[in-house]
């Protein structure tokens, strides 16, 4: 992109930090909001900001799949179940403060371990000679998927069939069960 050589760098960096801020904030809201419907909506926002990250990283195919599969299909399923169960009012019993404190402390200590490991890692600088920026496009990914990963790809279809049969079996109404 020669015409934008001057302003592009600052733009991309700012966009990264903005999207990171947005995704962390909405992830926190998923966990801490009282209403489950709000949690689902914040989770959709998180998925969209993660898709923005994928586009920044030149993984366009996965960004589109993320929007279609996660924000499209999975979140609609979540919203449907929440409305099906009619959980407008929060019926969750408040947890004791000791349990909340210990859970938060455990998560925070895990983060401390992660940060310690990441700080130890060497700074990776990609080499100019063998870098391929087109690696995340459909053409390249499709070639890899259907050449090297053909067997797992076919096995995934068997998994989907099993999941579909399982979901239908679980959702079937038993004889003598209460109705809604």
């Amino acid at each position: 992109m020669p015409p934008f050589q001057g302003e592009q760098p600052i733009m991309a960096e700012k966009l990264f930090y903005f999207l990171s801020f947005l995704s962390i904030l909405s992830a926190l809201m998923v966990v801490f909001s009282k209403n489950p419907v709000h949690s689902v909506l914040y989770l959709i926002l998180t998925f969209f900001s993660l898709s923005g990250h994928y586009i920044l990283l030149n993984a366009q195919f996965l960004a589109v799949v993320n929007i279609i599969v996660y924000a499209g299909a999975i979140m609609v399923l979540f919203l449907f179940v929440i409305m099906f169960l009619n959980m407008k009012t929060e019926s969750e019993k408040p947890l004791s403060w000791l349990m909340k404190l210990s859970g938060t402390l455990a998560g925070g200590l895990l983060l401390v371990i992660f940060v310690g490991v990441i700080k130890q890692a060497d700074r990776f600088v990609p080499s100019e000679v063998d870098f391929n920026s087109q690696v995340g496009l459909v053409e390249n990914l499709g070639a890899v998927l259907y050449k090297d990963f053909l067997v797992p790809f076919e096995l995934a279809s068997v998994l989907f069939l099993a999941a579909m049969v399982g979901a239908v079996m679980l959702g079937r109404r038993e004889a003598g069960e209460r109705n809604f």
Partner: protein
Amino acid sequence: MTEIPEIIRLVPLQHFMLLSSILFCIGVVGVLTRRNALIIFMSIELMLNAVNLMLISVASYHSDPAAQVFVFFIMAVAAAEVAVGLAIIVMVYRNTRNIDVDFLNNLKW
């Protein structure tokens, strides 16, 4: 073809790793501190996405397509997992009228 995108040149890989670690830990805290089964399920989705972000960032910095195919498989498995998990939650609600995980302690000890 060999031109490195600006984001990879300017933002170190550690920042992406830090972001995905933070998202993963938020998911862990959600699983540990909430009792609503649906919110726990959403926190698990959050953790899966944090791992996806880590894999994609490493794949892009190394320009390796294999890790991106791996993320594709994670998304496929996550879709199947959500379908079965939500069916289980609906079934539990139909039988007990409650999806509080503290309520489902018959198999605890």
